[in-house]
């Protein structure tokens, strides 16, 4: 009886690093040319300065420079997007909320592309800043549109999603416009591929952006687990429970926009991760955020690492954009969530 709510049901957490490590190793081993897990482990051991015997330099290079960095970034992007979806669902009281469907990813894409094409010192940092600005503008516009459309007869939960879709379309059109007007043909090809969500260009330096942002998002979410719970019966109820609603919303939505923006500038707009993963985790660990936040971060990481593996092997000799894989899983999940929501 003395078990507290904060720790109840979190005993599985020690497994998290093990599961994550397994996913990363798997992601490093599988690809066009499969490399045995033992070789992957040996390469990592040698990088850590441990004796690892003689290694094929090509294998070592593929694993270290290509696959492992890619898997780590995939894990970061997956964890961040899943957490963003979870936070937005809790705050907006909307089971379908996630950065992609709310137009935040599209806004971030437009911001990032504008910076990349216009070339205001086109480093990853300035691209992320552009993406952040775009994400905030998109969320602001979508919220205003949803507010304005309230009372037009569309069910309230549907309004913000519709507004998000309208926002996405507009920002995608703006992105296309910027590309058509300013980018060279080669630039355009690269950007279009990246827009669909793509981890091909990812290297170690990207991790320096991705990992701290993921940890920031996770930290902010963990700090606010009780706040997120308090929104169970809506914002007014949260306020009555002692939550400073405006501050909490600004903090959490700001973090969500920032983290999503950075992930979009690294890997493009990958959809549905924020929808599929939190719902699957609610099913597994329940609705309390003390459990849901770590579970969602872990599952998001694993989900995207595995999606990336699938994107590399499903068509031999060709790498699909990872956004295609997540959409193939996510769109049906969207339908399921929508239908289940109707039955309530």
């Amino acid at each position: 009886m003395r078990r507290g709510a904060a720790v109840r049901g979190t005993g599985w957490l020690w497994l998290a690093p093990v599961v994550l490590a397994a996913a990363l190793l798997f992601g490093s081993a599988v690809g066009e040319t499969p490399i045995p897990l033992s070789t992957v482990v040996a390469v990592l051991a040698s990088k850590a300065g441990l004796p690892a015997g003689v290694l094929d330099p090509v294998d070592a290079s593929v694993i270290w420079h290509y696959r492992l960095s890619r898997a780590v970034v995939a894990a970061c992007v997956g964890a961040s997007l899943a957490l963003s979806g979870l936070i937005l669902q809790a705050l907006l009281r909307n089971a379908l909320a996630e950065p992609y469907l709310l137009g935040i990813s599209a806004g971030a894409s437009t911001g990032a592309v504008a910076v990349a094409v216009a070339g205001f010192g086109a480093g990853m940092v300035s691209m992320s800043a552009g993406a952040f600005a775009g994400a905030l503008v998109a969320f602001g516009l979508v919220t205003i549109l949803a507010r304005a459309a309230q009372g037009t007869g569309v069910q309230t939960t549907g309004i913000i999603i519709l507004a998000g879709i309208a926002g996405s379309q507009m920002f995608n059109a703006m992105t296309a416009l910027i590309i058509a007007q300013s980018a060279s043909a080669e630039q355009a090809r690269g950007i279009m591929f990246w827009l669909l969500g793509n981890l091909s260009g990812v290297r170690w330096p990207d991790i320096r952006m991705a990992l701290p942002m993921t940890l920031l998002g996770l930290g902010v979410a963990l700090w606010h687990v009780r706040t997120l719970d308090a929104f169970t019966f809506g914002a007014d109820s949260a306020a009555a429970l002692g939550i400073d609603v405006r501050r909490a919303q600004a903090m959490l939505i700001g973090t969500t926009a920032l983290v999503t923006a950075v992930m979009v500038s690294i890997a493009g707009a990958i959809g549905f991760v924020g929808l599929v993963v939190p719902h699957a985790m609610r099913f597994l660990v329940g609705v309390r955020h003390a459990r849901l936040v770590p579970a969602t971060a872990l599952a998001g990481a694993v989900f995207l690492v595995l999606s990336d593996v699938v994107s590399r092997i499903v068509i031999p000799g060709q790498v699909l954009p990872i956004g295609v894989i997540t959409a193939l899983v996510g769109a049906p999940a969207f339908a399921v969530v929508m239908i289940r929501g109707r039955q309530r």
Partner: protein
Amino acid sequence: MSDTPILELVGVTRRVQGRDLVSDVSLHLRAGEMLGVIGPNGSGKSTLLNMMAGLLPPTRGQVRLAGQPMVRLRRQQIAQQLAMVSQAAETGERISVRDAVELGRTPWLGPLWPWSARDDEAVQAALQAVGMEQMAARDWSTLSGGERQRVHIARAHAQAPRILLLDEPTNHLDIHHQIGILDLVSQLSVTTVIALHDMHHALRCDRVMVMQSGRCVALGAPLDVLTPALIREIFAVDAQLIAHPAGRLPLFAFQRLA
């Protein structure tokens, strides 16, 4: 005990789009009393309760909680002293009864003040107070309207407030549950403000405040306030007070004005 009222409204007005939803209401809430707020639909009961809870700022006037202006208190400080049960707060989440009641501990917890045995005790006591300890594991979606309202009251109870505000807690409940909720509320040993529709329910309060178009038109002991003349004026019905055959609270007989 000091003379500082536990909750005080000083000329409180809430104006929205040029219309006063609540107009110049003043009130000293007495510690331990049960105050009923009664009035027709749209008379400003909910708005008044939301201002008492600090959820809506008054356009003019001031709300003071234990002598402190409400606007200067942090939300968490308010929630440690005052709990609110709103109308039909709903969720689509698959939470259990215990989960919902545990939410009441939110103002007493923080990232650095984790859940403790004290919180478990408060939740257990709250579940017992509403007679739901056997149903703690039940899913929210499986509860009836009356059960949900009990859980909301248990959540407010777990908040360990000095003041409990209830906005029409008996709405949409059948008569059995209406009386059950009122019995429950009157047994809780906190100062209570309860917005009500039913004048029979208002008779059970220590004091009654009658609202009309945002104004407080009467405040006092139920039988002093709820006179046939006032009821006729406010609710546009003829009312006759009839003694209860078994000597309990009197009854009203209503008739629509011709």
